[in-house]
């Protein structure tokens, strides 16, 4: 009996002011809510991809017979099959797989930077933030290559509905499939890539603050945790983009 009464009393106090009911700082809580809103934006984009894809006919032959056509939605593993320095070699999805691992690894180094920050280990924070920055820059470079290859197109090109041969892609025409395919590619991976770019900027900011000793003088490394949340989110979104754009 008495224990129940105490519990109610505690619960009332928890939300009654003066304490942090969720036991996180204001900054981290707001970062979470920002990420939630960002998750809605990305979900809307990816669900739009699903809507447009399933309102087009699917290719229903054997994968070896696949050719680019405006008549049906392309099979992604045939579109994304190029790897730098290996021109003309058919290596489906290898390069995006590599990009996925780069981003996951930079998420791991970020989590190690956060762990070092909790221990007030300035050297550790500097080291792991540097690796995280390198991972982010490597990912962006890969994506720049991926985009330029997608825009330039294949040597063969393919025939558009008006009968002309077209190479590569822009926002209104592409050789791979229906016009919306390339538009969605640019929009979704571009929006994600811009998030990675902002993440690299934020990472650099906190790296700079750690190196100059500003965070140490503040007495805690919570900035690393907040920026880390954002960085993991970027990784999380890529996991979904990878599945819905490249695998499905």
């Amino acid at each position, binding site marked *: 009996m008495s224990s129940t009464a105490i519990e109610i009393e505690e619960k009332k106090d928890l939300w009654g002011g003066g304490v942090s*009911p*969720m*036991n*996180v700082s204001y900054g981290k*809580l707001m970062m*979470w*809510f920002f990420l*939630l809103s960002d*998750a*809605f934006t990305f*979900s*809307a984009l990816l*669900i*739009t991809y*699903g*809507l*447009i*894809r*399933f*309102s*087009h*006919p*699917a290719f229903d032959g*054997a*994968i070896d017979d696949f050719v680019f056509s405006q008549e049906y939605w392309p*099979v992604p*593993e045939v579109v994304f099959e190029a790897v730098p320095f290996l021109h003309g070699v058919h290596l*489906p*999805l290898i390069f995006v*797989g590599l990009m*996925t*691992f780069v981003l*996951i*690894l930079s*998420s*791991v180094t*970020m*989590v*190690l930077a956060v*762990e070092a920050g*909790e*221990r*007030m*280990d*300035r050297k550790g924070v500097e080291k792991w933030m540097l690796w995280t920055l390198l991972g982010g820059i490597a990912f962006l470079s890969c994506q720049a290559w991926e985009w330029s290859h997608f825009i330039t197109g294949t040597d063969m090109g393919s025939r558009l509905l008006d009968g002309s041969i077209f190479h590569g892609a822009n926002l209104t025409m592409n050789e791979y499939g229906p016009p919306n395919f390339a538009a969605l590619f640019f929009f979704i991976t571009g929006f994600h890539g811009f998030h990675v770019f902002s993440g690299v900027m934020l990472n650099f900011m906190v790296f700079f603050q750690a190196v100059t000793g500003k965070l*140490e003088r503040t007495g805690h490394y919570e900035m690393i945790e907040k920026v880390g*949340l954002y960085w*993991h*989110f970027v*990784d*999380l979104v890529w*996991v*979904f983009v990878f*599945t819905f754009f490249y*695998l*499905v």
Partner: protein
Amino acid sequence: MQQNTPIDVKSIDKDKVKMFLRVTLYLFVITVFEFAIAFTVPHEYKWVRIFIFVALTIVKAYYIMSEFMHLGHEKGALKMSILFPLLFVAFLLFILLFQADAIFQAVY
């Protein structure tokens, strides 16, 4: 610059780092497995492929959110405030996939 109070650097939390490396291994293995599915299960089994990919993606998302973003160790109120609103995503997915089929039927 006067640095009067020496900074108390604690030693590495080995269990925590081990846990991070284990999660990394899971993410790595799941991604490799997804590749294996992509190249072994034929495209005729479209919905089997989609189901496996989505399920594995959700497992990966769980590990990233729970361990890397630390959400699994936060208070229940915070977990729920982040996870419940995501039900709207499931709802949007549900209605727009029906819409996609309706458009397909109307056009083709």
